[in-house]
């Protein structure tokens, strides 16, 4: 009899532990199979404001970007706070893969034509893997202004400049993303002999999501010391991203009027402290033109 009781007790114990374990065990199966997952959408658009974000067009996606920087806000009513006078950039970015993008653009500023390539070669991952994403960006710019007639012989190659940069980005939380962007600007021709052909900048940017469709963005670029004094200053921009479904509207205030890398990184002349600011926007419209798979 005692044997029976002990046995029954053991059995029920066994069954009980088994029953209790069962559901947890089932869920354990999911935890075992866990692999690191890619962190996506650190920023909303391909640019934080002026500078590149880690985002690229998805495979087969064509992103049409139309951007304006108006005149000085400080011009007041006479120029409707700068709205009378706009600089424009139109660009197309195409996603060759989900990580590799090629683009062309034309800016009215300096009548500049661009060709660029952007590659996110390391993805940020959660649950193991890289804590940051790494994106390389290179752009070739061609100045289209007529050469001045001043007796100096210039060739077509003198119109060309390049910018190479690395975007180190981390989405720290669903709301906050940060980016660190060192850049190298090379100009084939500069205005005078003392000016350096190469200039470096260290930039930083952020995005803070206010809700699923609205975020605050900012970026700052520090010009590294140059061999001679010049009038160029650091670039600071603050703005809002508004997402409407098919479009991303980026509205901002900046002291840089050019919308391609050489201009805003290395050739910004207006200062925030003088109130020389420009209102502007980027509109991103995406079209799926190629196959995703």
């Amino acid at each position, binding site marked *: 009899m005692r*044997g029976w009781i002990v*046995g029954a007790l053991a059995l029920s114990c066994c069954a009980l532990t088994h029953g209790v374990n069962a559901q947890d065990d089932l869920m354990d199966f*999911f935890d075992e199979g866990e692999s690191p*997952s890619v962190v996506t959408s650190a920023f909303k658009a391909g640019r934080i404001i002026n500078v590149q974000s880690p985002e690229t067009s998805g495979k087969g996606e064509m992103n049409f970007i139309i951007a304006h920087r108006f005149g000085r806000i400080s011009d007041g009513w006479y120029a409707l706070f700068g709205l009378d006078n706009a600089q424009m950039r139109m660009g197309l970015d195409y996603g060759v893969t989900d990580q590799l993008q090629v683009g062309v653009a034309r800016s009215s500023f300096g009548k500049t034509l661009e060709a660029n390539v952007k590659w996110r070669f390391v993805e940020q991952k959660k649950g193991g893997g890289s804590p940051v994403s790494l994106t390389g960006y290179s752009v070739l710019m061609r100045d289209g202004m007529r050469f001045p007639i001043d007796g100096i012989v210039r060739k077509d190659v003198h119109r060309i400049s390049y910018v190479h940069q690395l975007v180190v980005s981390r989405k720290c939380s669903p709301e906050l993303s940060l980016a660190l962007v060192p850049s190298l600007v090379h100009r084939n021709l500069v205005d005078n002999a003392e000016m350096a052909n190469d200039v470096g900048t260290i930039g930083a940017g952020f995005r803070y999501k206010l809700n699923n469709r609205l975020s605050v963005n900012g970026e700052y670029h520090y010009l590294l010391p140059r061999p001679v004094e010049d009038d160029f200053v650091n670039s600071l921009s603050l703005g809002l991203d508004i997402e409407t479904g098919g479009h991303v509207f980026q509205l901002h205030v900046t002291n840089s009027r050019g919308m391609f890398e050489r201009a805003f990184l290395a050739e910004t002349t207006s200062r925030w402290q003088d109130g020389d600011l420009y209102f502007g926007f980027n509109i991103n419209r995406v079209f799926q033109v190629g196959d995703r798979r």
Partner: protein
Amino acid sequence: MKYILLFVCCTVATLAQAQRFATRDARISFLSETPVEDIRAESTEASAIMDLANGQLAFQVPILSFHFPKALMEEHFNENYMESERFPKATFRGTVSGLDPAQSGAQNVTAKGVLEMHGVAVEREVSGTMERTGSGWVLDAQFEVPCAAHDIDIPKVVTENIAEVIAVTLHAELKAK
């Protein structure tokens, strides 16, 4: 005597262990159907596990594993609707009834349990079919998920493009574990 019973008990436990069937590449697809557009997405990275001994069934799918024909749709799905960073997975855990393990051919079964997605758990009863195969079970089910039930907010401007009720199709080939 008690040793025999202990032995029996342990054997039962072991047998129960062997009655687990699982997969890590179950297919879950969904369709949002409106007169304006049909939006489809599919994941082949869903995991499923079933314990035949007690009929318990669990599914889990990473939200980020759903792929769409357009990259922008995928971004909107993850960023605006499912908030996949905050709620990275959808799960179902429940119990299957109406299953006769000995029977061959497809049989209708019902799973009763909790479907959790977008951080909201909803009691559900889902019917589907199960069929014994050589090495395991094939499970198929179709059910509907009303977005509102899981606090998935669809803004007015896109109500013509996104259905309020999403049709979900599920196919899992469970193998003995």
